[in-house]
């Protein structure tokens, strides 16, 4: 997986994807009109452009997948998180781990939903190290890996089952909420044309 590594800012990584794609399409049109006689064979040129387009499409799909994950987690749509994972995926978020899609579903639907996990991630924000974010696609476009430098909201659930704790939980409250810097290491797999998260691991700085 060395063929197509990108290192640039998260903003560029995520937000300029569309612009880059646009530039690529534009250059395709331009290139077709102005191809000199000694240029590479049209087939090879088209192949390269097609590869670029595929890359852009894959990056956009992975971008959407990552945003969907962070958005659903932040909005506590826990029951809809497992859809984003591969059948054999594994996650490890501040020591709370699960392997396999059914276990990941239980992690979010039970441990997160009922605030039974000892520590829960509440939200992610790009941090000052985001320029070191990286996304790597393998040549066949079937696997990818990414690093996201983030600040993570680390929540410690309330203990006990007294009425006050029950009411606080209903308000989405935690015993302790703090922000911590670290990075998410993710890998992705494309199955039946759709990208899924194959692994997701959080590492504190």
């Amino acid at each position, binding site marked *: 997986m060395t063929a197509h590594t990108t290192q640039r800012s998260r903003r560029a990584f995520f937000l300029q994807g569309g612009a880059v794609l646009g530039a690529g399409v534009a250059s395709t049109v331009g290139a077709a009109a102005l191809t000199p006689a000694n240029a590479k064979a049209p087939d090879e040129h088209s192949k390269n452009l097609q590869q670029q387009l595929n890359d852009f499409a894959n990056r956009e799909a992975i971008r959407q997948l990552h945003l969907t994950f962070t958005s659903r987690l932040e909005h506590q749509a826990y029951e809809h998180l497992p859809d984003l994972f591969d059948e054999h995926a594994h996650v490890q978020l501040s020591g709370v781990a699960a392997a396999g899609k059914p276990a990941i579903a239980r992690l979010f639907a039970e441990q997160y939903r009922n605030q039974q996990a000892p520590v829960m991630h509440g939200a992610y924000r790009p941090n000052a190290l985001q320029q070191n974010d990286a996304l790597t696609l393998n040549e066949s476009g079937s696997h990818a890996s990414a690093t996201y430098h983030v600040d993570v909201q680390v929540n410690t659930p309330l203990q*006990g*089952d007294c*009425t*006050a704790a029950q*009411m606080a939980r209903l*308000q989405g*409250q*935690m015993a302790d909420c703090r922000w911590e810097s670290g990075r998410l290491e993710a890998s992705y797999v494309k199955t039946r044309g759709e990208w899924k998260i194959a692994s997701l691991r959080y590492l504190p700085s």
Partner: protein
Amino acid sequence: MSTRNYKPLQMHRIPYTDLTEEQVTQALRPTASGPASRYPLSNVLAGKRLKIVTDAGGPTLEYHFRTGRELELSENGGKRVKAGYGALESRNLVLVSHMIPGTQRGYKLVVDQHSRLATVFEVYFSGYAEQEIAAAKAANREPQFKNGRRNREAQRRIWFGYVEGDGPAPTARHTFTNRMEGKGIYWRQDNDIEILEFYLSILYSNFIELTRFGGEMTVCAPSDYIMVSDHQFIYSRIECEFSGTYTLQIVDLFDMTQAGVRLGLNEKDELEYYMYTGQGELTGQIATFEVFGNNGETRGPRRVYRPIETFDVMTDDEVKEQVLNHAHAFGDGKGSGAAGMGGYKSERITHFAGKKLTVRMDNGGPVIDYEFVDGGKLKWRYEGDSHWREAWYEMYEPDDKLYFFAHLLDAEFPRSCAMVAIDLKNGLSTVVKGTTGTPFRNNETTPTYYFGVFEMEGAPTPPTYLRHGWTDEMVGEAVTWNYQPGNPGLTSMHFYATPTTYSWIIFQPDGSGGMQWSSPGWYSKLRDGVYIMAWVEEACNGTLGVICFNKRTMHDAGFGYHVGRNGLSLSVVGARARHAGKFDIKKYIGLKG
């Protein structure tokens, strides 16, 4: 103080009828002609036409107020319908209330005749089931209707907007607010209803029904607070978990007046739909805990706490099994952890090991001999009984040489515990005996207070006549309790509303008041500034909480007694307090101020 009409059942004990949609439709039929009122309503809108445009997908309402009591309405350009209505003025504001004949819904409008701003409340019935089904689907669970479909419970949608008129549409809007938070007001309505209202949360309020229920209990209701100006507010509440009645009123803090409407079905399933005015007296303003600059305008959704719906009622046999075979006091001697309400428990007192004492309660109350085996285990027996029992205990010192300990009593059904305060400065003692069960639910608890003395080697000779006793000194006080460390930790605010009740407010992460509930509560005085307060979370969690509160240290030592499907537990309560303020309300509930 006027004559009080006490009711045999307080709101949380009334078995409100689970009416069908058809029954609600029938009950609401008289609303077609508009609200009643003791005094003439306003004609300010008679002959006028108003088009109200609302934001965020809300309705466009075109009104023709044909007379002072009859209107025509077209919703979103639809067919015109006729309805009776009522209107009240409050300075520049007009409050309008009407239902749509043949339906279970209608509108309350607050229109500002100067700014042309308007807030629209669509109020409807038979909407709970739909919400519950949607919530269950979102959470991937089965909908729950343990206490029925609650068709009688009013629901509301709120839209902010303006009245179309000459010139450009105003861009300002009424907003949600926290500017009412912390206030208490006594109201006397023009129909002689007296009520104490407390706005201690930005999502809830609590009130004491002086006229309708005698003023014994305070109850809580999910509420909305909307700011019109620095002195004009819209306040509304729904008596969820109870009758489901809807109340909306304009509150003017300059002249302390109100103009309101009440719509719902009372405990006899009779329609109450009337408008009223009232005169208020500010009873106090306590502290609020948001950071400065947080005005509550983006308050988030207003959730409803439904303890009656979620309370797990157990059978006799189920409770018996738990209290006999799954009873645990203080982790069976391993000590109460910092979980729940004990995160700030004080240092445990263990130096009674080897001591003996006898607590002797008055008037046939319990007389119990104790031998403290070590710092966590004691032996006890009723005086005259040769049989000593062993029990786990924990002891704390909430004030100098004032000790408070607790342990389980005999393994019988129903099962009791003893929470014992002994004062080594004067020989006085108070025992709160907690027992499982109430006439309503087996897995609730009941406290019984006993006042008396104790005898122990080295302890002073107790007085003959003086005793700890009941007090109303706590009435009106509001105290925050931080139970668990962390940010925000677990923090609630107690509001000691009358000598027999209190309410608690759970703070939201931004420091604003959130969900709120209430229960009966009782107060006794041990020393100046030191009190025992007991409460039972009736129709809620069933728990008995008993704390010894020291107002000098702003700390407590106490115990929780609870039975549920996870067993019977006796655990410690220890929290840090802040004084939030006090309401001057004694005179309204028949106490000397």
